[in-house]
Each structure stands twice: as C-alpha cells, then as structure tokens.
C-alpha cells in the first residue's frame, strides 16, 4: 500500500478547497472594505472573535455549496482495497489518493466530510428558521397580552421542554412514526407559521397601499404555498420535497427547539412592551398585532440574532446526535453524526478514521458560538 507524505496530504487537501478559499477571500475583502456601511454585519469585522466565527461558519457554508467540486470521490462509492487505511493512502486499483483515509467500507472520508456539510447546513438553518416563526407567532402574544393566553402557551412550551431531547427523538423519529401521518401532520402545522407571520406582517403594514400589498402578498402566497404543498404533501410534479425520513427529522428538530424560541421571544416582548414607543403606537390606535410584529419584533432583533446563531449550533449538535444514534438517517448517509457512529467502533485501529468528522462538527458549532459572541459584543455597543 502506498501513502502520500504528510506535506502532500495537507497541500492537496488545501488545494481541493480552492473555490472555498476564493469566495472566503472575496467576502472578507469586501467586508473589510465596506465594513462602515454594513451595519451589524460590518461591525463584526472589528472583533477578532467575530471574524474567527464568521470565517469558520462561512468555510463550512461554502464547502456545502461547492461540495461536488471539493470532494474527490463520490461520497457513497466503496473502494474495497483501501478499507480502514490511513490518511494519504493510494488505491492500487484506480491510483486515486484518499486524503483523510478511507472508512470501514472503503469510502473516502475527505469527500464524505465535504458532503456532510451539505446536510447540516441545509437542515439546521431551515429548521431554526421555522422554529423562530413558531416561537415568534406564539411568544409575541404570550408576552404582550399575558394572562390566560400566556399561561396556556407557557404550559404547552413547558410540556415539550420537560422531555429530555434524546427521549423526544427516540419517540418521534422512528420507522413506526413514519408509517403514520404524524410527521406530515406536524410539518403541516409547523410550516403554516412562517406563512402566517410573513403574510400577517405584510397585511398589517400595507393593507392601505395596494401597489405594495398585492405583489408582496402574491409573492408570499405563491412561493410559500408552493414550498408548503411540496414539503407537506410531497405531490408529484415540480415541487421541493423532502424524503420521509428527512421530513420526520425536520419536524422533530423544529418541535424540540421552538419552545426555547418561544421563551426568549416572550421574555423580550414582556420587556419591550413597557417602552415609550410602544405606548405611542398604542395611543396612535395601532392594532395589537401591528404593535407586536412591527414595533416589538424589530426592536428585539439583536438578542434574537445572537440566539439564532447559538440555536443553529445547537441544532447542528442535535442532528449529530440523531446520526450518532442512527435515528432516522439512512446508514450510508454522509452526515457527520452517522459517520461518527459508524467509524467509532474502529477507533483502536487509529484515530484518523473518526477524527475528520468529529473535528468538522466541533469546528462548525464552535464557529457559530464565536459568531454569536462577536455579534453580542458588537450589538451591546449600541
């Protein structure tokens, strides 16, 4: 068995990421040049922690975008000759190099890690976004009106929060649940919230201005409805659909993280509703939902953005947990959690087989946490 030297491995791995480096350089160059005009995002470039976090997150986001270019091999292709061989092994049959070595089935770890970024970076932000829509739609009235609405919604949120996440997943992400209509029903309810929040916000602000209202509403109903129908009912035709197991995971992750968002939004609303500008809006005779969506929500954006970053990181950990327990994901799926699960049994042969995916996951979550820290630091300067 022939191996590349350590220097060659590093050089080739770095070279494989060329589109990522190129885009990173472009974004950071532009960001540094125009940081004065970019608001909160621009101010990130004043803090070392924020820049480090942004760099890590962008690195993985760009890897997800360019996964097909970065990867050397097909992430599912098995090369029998190089099974469990260390980094830099060269396949005697095809002559191709395996930069980070091959896993227990002879699949290229480097390519699998690159493709694994795709799964995480699509599901985690999307699930967080939907969880935010739910948390906002329920947390705003709970904090604004208080009383019975608050008591009922808080009770519901506490019900979900009383489940240890792992138990929730073992109950909700199972083949048995997928045979029933539960995942589709959950998705059907959850995906309504983004539509309601976006549609409601537009209606409340532009109801009097037809020129804006009609195209904006048409866009929300058209695009949102198209996505909704595709994701929930998965009909044949030109729709965006999710595989049943991915939909199951998506619904479970949204279910697990929306009560947390609810609590934060509720707390912020209770704080902000005592401000003078809210009293001014109320005196103007604005409707309650207008005050919530157009006065309170924009003023709560700082803490919400910071929490959103942390929450995407936490969702990444949750997705890894699902993979680690082999819940809901196909065994050959190249997501980081499943890879950790499948390779950890071979740790005695050498650490190389499990380290790439563990370090990838840890670095993405670390990046999101650093980004959140940088944003918090900069947001506090206002």
């Amino acid at each position, binding site marked *: 068995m022939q191996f590349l030297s350590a220097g060659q491995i590093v050089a080739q791995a770095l070279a494989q990421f060329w589109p990522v480096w190129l885009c990173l350089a472009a974004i950071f160059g532009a960001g540094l040049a125009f940081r004065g005009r970019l608001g909160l995002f621009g101010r990130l470039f004043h803090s070392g922690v924020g820049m480090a976090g942004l760099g890590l997150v962008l690195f993985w986001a760009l890897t997800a975008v360019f996964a097909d270019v970065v990867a050397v091999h097909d992430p599912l292709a098995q090369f029998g000759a190089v099974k469990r061989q260390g980094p830099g092994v060269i396949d005697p049959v095809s002559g191709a190099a395996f930069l980070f070595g091959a896993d227990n089935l002879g699949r290229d770890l480097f390519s699998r890690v690159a493709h694994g970024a795709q799964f995480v970076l699509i599901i985690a932000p999307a699930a967080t976004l939907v969880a935010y829509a739910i948390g906002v739609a329920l947390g705003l009235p709970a904090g604004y009106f208080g009383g019975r609405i608050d008591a009922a919604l808080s*009770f519901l949120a*506490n*019900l979900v*929060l*009383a*489940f*240890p*996440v*792992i*138990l929730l997943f*073992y*109950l*909700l992400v*199972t*083949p*048995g*649940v997928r*045979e*029933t209509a*539960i995942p589709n029903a959950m998705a059907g309810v959850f995906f309504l919230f983004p539509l309601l929040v976006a549609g409601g916000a537009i209606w409340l602000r532009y109801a009097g201005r037809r020129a804006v209202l009609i195209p904006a509403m048409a866009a929300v109903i058209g695009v949102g409805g198209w996505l909704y129908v595709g994701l929930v009912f998965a009909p044949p035709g030109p729709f965006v659909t999710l595989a049943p197991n991915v939909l199951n995971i998506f619904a479970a992750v949204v279910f697990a993280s929306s009560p947390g968002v609810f609590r934060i939004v509720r707390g912020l609303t209770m704080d902000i509703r005592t401000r003078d500008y809210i009293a001014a809006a109320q005196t103007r005779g604005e409707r309650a939902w207008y005050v919530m969506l157009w006065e309170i929500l924009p003023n709560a954006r700082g803490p919400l953005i910071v929490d959103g970053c942390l929450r995407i*990181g936490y969702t990444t*950990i949750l997705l*890894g*947990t699902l993979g*680690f*327990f082999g819940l809901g994901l196909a065994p050959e799926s190249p997501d980081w*959690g499943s890879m*950790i699960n499948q390779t*950890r049994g071979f*740790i*005695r042969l*050498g*650490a190389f087989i*499990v*380290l790439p995916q*563990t370090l990838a*996951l*840890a670095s993405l*979550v*670390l990046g*999101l*946490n*650093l980004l959140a*820290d940088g944003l918090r630091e900069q947001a506090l300067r206002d």
Partner: protein
Amino acid sequence: MLAFILRRAGAMALTMLALSFIVFALVNLEPNLRKLALEQNNTRMEAAAVERWLTENGYRAPLLERYGAWLGGVVTGDMGRSTRFRAPVAEVLWPRLGYTAVLAFWVLVTMIPGALLIGVLAGMREGSATDRSLSVFAIVTSATPEYVSGIIFTVIFASGLGWLKGVARAGAPTFDTLALPVMTMAIYGMGYISRMTRAAMAEVMTAQYIRTARLKGLSFRAIVLRHALRNALIAPFTVIMLQFPWLLTGVVIVETLFNYKGFGWTLVEAANNNDIDLLLACSLVSVAVVLTTQAISDIGYAALNPRIRVS
C-alpha cells in the same frame, strides 16, 4: 411559601399526567403494536393472527382505558414486563438507575466546583487575561458535544497515552474505567455553567455595595468571598438545576459511547427493541427527574433570593 410549593407540586402532577399520556400514545402506535405481535410470536404471522393476538392480550382496548390500567399499575409499583430483558421492568430499571446515579454523582462532584471556580475567577476581574482565556475555554467546551469530546478524549487518553480505558463497566466503578465518561460529561456542562456564573459574578462586581465595600478599604479577597460570592451564586444554582435535561441526554450519549450499562443504555436498548413497557418506564423516570429539578430550581431560587416574593 407552603402554598407556593403546593401549587408547584400541583402543576407538576398535571404536567406529568399530560406527558405520560403523550408518551403512552406515541409508544403504543399501531406499527409498534404490530411489530410487537410479530416479535412475540413468529415473524411470518398473518395479519389476521396478529389482530387476534393483539385482541387477546388487551392491546385493542380503547387507548384511554389502557392508559388508565397502566397508570394504575405504575402507582401500585407494577410497571409491566420488559420483553428485551425478559424480566419485570422494576427489576431491570432500579439497578440500572443505581449505576447511573454513581456516574451522575461523580459528574456533579467534579463539574459544579470546577464550573463555579472558573466562573468566579473569570467574572471577578472582567476583561482580564484570565477572564478572556477562561471564556475561550468555556466557549470551546460548550461547543463540543459529548459524542465529539468523548471520542477525542478516548483517542488521547485511551488509544494514545493508554492511561484510561475506553470502555466503562457499570456496577464495578474503578478510576480508569469511570474517568473518561465522567470527564466527557463534566467538561461539556462546565462550559455553560461557568459562563452563567461569570455573567452573574461580573454583574455583581459592578454593584453599588461592592464599590462601598471597596471604599471602606476591604481587601479584594474579602470583597469577593464575603460580599460578591453569595449574591453571584444564586443564578448558577438555577442554571445547574435546569441543566438536568441536558445531563440526562448526556447520560444517554455517554453510556452508549462507553458501553456503560446504566439507565441511558437501558433507554436506548428499550427503544431499539420496541420494548414498550420498559420504554414507558424510562420515559416516566426521565420526565420525573426533569420536572423535579425544575421545581427545586424554582423553589430554591425563591428561598435563596430574599428579593423574590412568592404570592
């Protein structure tokens, strides 16, 4: 105070009832029942025979009636029979919980003092070099989930240095088998708790009475130990108590990772083997732990902080 505690207990009982019903319904879904029938008899049984077996064994009674029967059993101490271990659930569950209690004890004993120390040291001089390096440590550890840090520690301490063992044995705890699971869980929780402690400490250090103490000429040591610490430790108390759901998830991950056959391992076995009664019992225990710690956190917060008035 008594009324407050009673009201909390009432809300807790209600939550427990609602949650146990949800779990009961989810565990007893139609596909799970059919799978159970096939597993208990033979896998090539026909649909009609499955139906007959389910009816004969009472699985076809209305859900509420079966839930009532199960609840009655739990209250009197009968939690059913485990199909995976072929023994009554109580015989499987309690010893396993004991093993996990040993693990959890060592985790708490190492995690809490460590986290508080780090948080206080970082928070007493905000912005100092100590503060910044400890904050970085806290961010890094709380960004590394147990299934990542556990593997990295195994690579370093078991495969690399050979000091510790990568497989733990429940029931016979020794230092070299228990150290890795405890370390993995303690370090993950430490990050979060120490960040909260740091924030509380930093806030207290800017308070008026600390300035007064300083102006009185008290030493920095006396200010921190006698004046700041007491007020700064109220918030971490709540945080530590609310950490228990995470701790439970951590237990499941770590016990699977290190093959420590405690409560978490049992939960995974029950779920993977469609062991309905055992999974129900495990869920009940975990939910009870979470709700109890939440209630202790609320009551303790009110008791520790004289500024909170319970009505």
